[in-house]
Every structure is written in C-alpha cells, then in structure tokens.
C-alpha cells in the first residue's frame, strides 16, 4: 500500500494530510483496511494511560483478520469492526452523539470512507479543524449522479454509467463535502448516440 498521490486540481477537490495526534479529550478513529496502518502508526506511539481516550472503528476487507488482531491489540477503550462503511459511519454517529467538546476525529483509508467520516463529523457538530484525514489505498471515487441522485460507490472509470438512470456520467473533480461524493454529469446529453470510450483512470 503506497501513500496517496493526488494531483492538484480545483479547490473543491479534497486533499489529505498525515494523521498526527493533537491535544484532545477523546480521540476517535475510523479506518478501512488500507488505512489501518495509519491508525496503528499513531496509536502505538501513545502512552498507555491515554488509551482510555481512544475509540476505534474499523471496516476490514472481507476475510481479512490480521489487521483486526493488530488494531484490537492496541488496547483502545472501544474497538469495533463492521462489514460496511455505512454501518461503521452509523456507529461513529452514535459515539459522537455522546461525545464532548475537545473530541478529535482521525480518518484513514479510501476517499469514500474518509469523505463519509468527514460528513458525519460535521453533522455531529465537529469543527473541520478537529478532523484529520489521511488517504490510503485506491483512488476509486464515490460519485453522485446529479440527474437521478443515485450514489455510485467505487467508481474507477471515466466516464461511468449510472446504474439507475443509465446516463453516461463525466466524473468531475467537483466534490460535495455534505454528500461526501464527486459529481457525475451526463457527458453526451446533446447527442446520446455519441460513443465515448470508457477508461479506467481512478486506480
């Protein structure tokens, strides 16, 4: 797993940093398999007496167990894992609804996970400066079809066909923090018969 390389683009396109522990009353982590190593890297540096402030949510790759064991072994106050990002983000919302000011949120992994974590944090009242993101793994995008509002996960091609309304969508760098999704806009609206080559570009 290599570190993220995201090309410079428009302002709306998110960029990511490197997780670093900052002062806080409590530290919440959300990661998928590609981001697990980031969580392990920063949490294992913490003194033991801080571990009761640490809460970790994890979305493993199906069938994988080694990283679950490593994350569990960190000794966090709470550690839970879920098969989908949606369920893990739902649990994050539950945890944050009881959280206090001074809470820090750390997100690591693919853009879909990071983006949905950011949106949930904001919904729960977390200031964006209290949320840190580190991108790891695939550059596959979560895309909203702006025409029928369908969310398309793990988009790797340009353009992409909307599975719901079947329009061919150009995946823009224009990103919605609220929806945690890139915007997909019909690429051949004027001439739907126009043939456009579909290439794999978001790897």
């Amino acid at each position, binding site marked *: 797993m290599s570190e993220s390389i995201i090309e410079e683009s428009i302002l709306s396109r998110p960029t990511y940093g490197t997780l670093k522990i900052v002062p806080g009353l409590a530290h919440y982590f959300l990661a998928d398999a590609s981001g697990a190593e980031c969580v392990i890297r920063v949490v294992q540096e913490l003194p033991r007496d801080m571990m009761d402030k640490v809460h970790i949510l994890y979305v493993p790759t199906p069938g994988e167990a080694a990283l679950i064991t490593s994350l569990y072994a960190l000794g966090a106050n709470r550690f839970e894992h879920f098969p989908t990002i949606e369920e893990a983000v739902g649990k994050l919302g539950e945890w944050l609804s009881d*959280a206090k*000011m001074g809470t820090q949120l750390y997100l690591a992994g693919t853009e879909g996970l990071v983006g949905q974590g950011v949106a949930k944090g904001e919904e729960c009242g977390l200031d964006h400066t209290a949320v840190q993101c580190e991108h790891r793994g695939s550059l596959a995008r979560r895309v909203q079809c702006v025409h029928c509002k369908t969310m398309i996960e793990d988009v790797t091609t340009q353009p992409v066909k909307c599975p719901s309304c079947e329009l061919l969508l150009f995946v823009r760098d224009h990103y919605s923090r609220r929806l945690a999704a890139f915007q997909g806009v019909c690429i051949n609206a004027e001439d739907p018969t126009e043939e456009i080559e579909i290439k794999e570009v978001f790897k």
Partner: protein
Amino acid sequence: MSASDHLIPVVVSNVVEVNPIIKRFEFKHVNGDELPAFSGGAHIVVEMLDDGTKRKNPYSLMSSPFERDQYAISVRRDDTGRGGSKFMHEQVRPGMEMKISAPVNLFSLDLRAKKHLMIAGGIGITPFIAQMAQADKLGVPFELHYAARSVSQAAYMDSLADRFGDHVSCYCDDQGEGVDFETLLSSQPLGTHVYVCGPKGMIERVVETATHLGWPAAHVHFEHFLAPPVGEPFEVHLVKAGIDITVGAEQSLLEAVEASGTPINCMCRGGACGQCETAVVACDGEIMHNDHWLDEEQRASKQLIMPCVSRFRGKRLELDL
C-alpha cells in the same frame, strides 16, 4: 469612513443606578424612530462632549435585539480612567441629547452552534444579556456562567437568574466561589461554542483551558474592549496631512487625529477590530502597544500602530496619515 462617522441623534430616556459603581443608560431616537437592527453581542460608540473634549467610547448593547424602540447600555465607573465613564455617571441625565453610532458586532453568536456557553466576568455581562434574549427566542440551548467580585457589585445577577432560571449560574469571589473552567469546558456537548467577556485574566484562562482540552479555535469567542489608557502627552507628525499634532494625557491618538480633521478608519475604538491600523513612517522612541490586534512580530517591527489605544514615548513619531 467609519461607523462612528454617521451618528444617530438620541435622547437619554432613562438613567438607572444599578449599584454603586454601575449605571444603566437608555436611549431613544430623538424623533422616536426605530433604531437600527442589531444582534446580541453588538456595541455602539457613544459620543461625549465633555467641556470641549470629544470622547467616543464603545459600550455593548444589553437590550433585547427584538426591541428596536430603545437601546440600553451599562457603564462601570472607572475613576482612574480618562474620564469617559465618569462623564457618563456624573453628567448624563434623562432628557439630554447625545449622539451614538450604529451598532457593530464583533462578538456575535455563531448560529451553527448546537449550544452557546457564555462566561461573563463583572461588567462583561452586558453583551450576554442581549445574546441570551436572542438565544432564548431562537430556542437554541444556552448556559451563562457569571462571576463577579461581590454580590453588591454583581449587576443584574438576581434579575437574570429570575428571567432565565437554570440557564444561569452565578459565582461571587467574596463568597469563595469561582468557575471551574476545566470541569465546565470538559463537559460540553459536541457543537458547543464558548463566548467569554470579562477581565483579561479570565479570557486568557478560558482560551488556554479550551485549547489545552482540544477545542477548535473557531468555537472559542472572546471580547475584551480596552479603554484607551491615560499617559504622558506626546507629539506626532502626520505625513500625508503635513501637520504636527499633540496627543493630550487623557486623549487617545485616534481622538487627536480626529480632532485635527484628518481622515482615519476606525470601528471598535478598543484595540480589537483592527480597522484603525496605521503605518508608521518613522519612529525614534518606543510605541506602547496596548491593542489585541497586532502580533508580537508586528509590534517589534515598529511599522504599525493602533491609534485607538496605543501611545508613544520618545523623540519623533511619523504616521502615514
């Protein structure tokens, strides 16, 4: 151009002695017109014509933002100050005509907050009285923690406790009470914004504690108006105007510039807003920086000064005015 260039003619409709050191002044428009709308935390600048000296001091509005027929401010008497508060206490009577600026808000509620946590020290209570009326009407949770030296000096403590009930907690130094900032700031739900207005030491303790606990800076709000300090008179050369002016002992540099008829931007007149920031062309001496605006590096450079509260001691000061 500044907010205090367009003054509103008002009549003093009421003067109330709240306690031995604090008086409340109420103003209505001379024509009975509605006064400009404002939001909780806003202040006005009151012009005082005191025996040939013109002073303009900022005071927070404490009346409800939903009542536009009159404004109310409270003034704490400071006998060691330049005389503004003394003038208000001794000279201002009901029926007197005065001029005030339109309201300006440098300390507004962040309406995205899920809860407003307000911390007041002494006369710093005034902006919160307007903010609580606003938060109460908006139905957003709020809490006031109000500390004062003694029961007798705690303006409005009883009436606020009656009006807002459980939302208000009071602390008096002479009863051995104090706010435990660590505990208070450790127990606030996510999405809370904290606001503090009071003595410098209190603001510093709240900001430091919140930062240490991991509160984002954007959720921590404070207001600390300074009264311009008194000092030795000094000379200043205004380069663009090509004139020399003298700043009197009880006059601010800003007031002296205004008295000379030289245009200058300003807003809060208390070292907080940054509007009057002025470039220093030459400085042979020491600038006494009294503002909250310039950072350490800017101060050390001797290239900028905030004329509303800062003074000078030395041989020559030239300003880009």
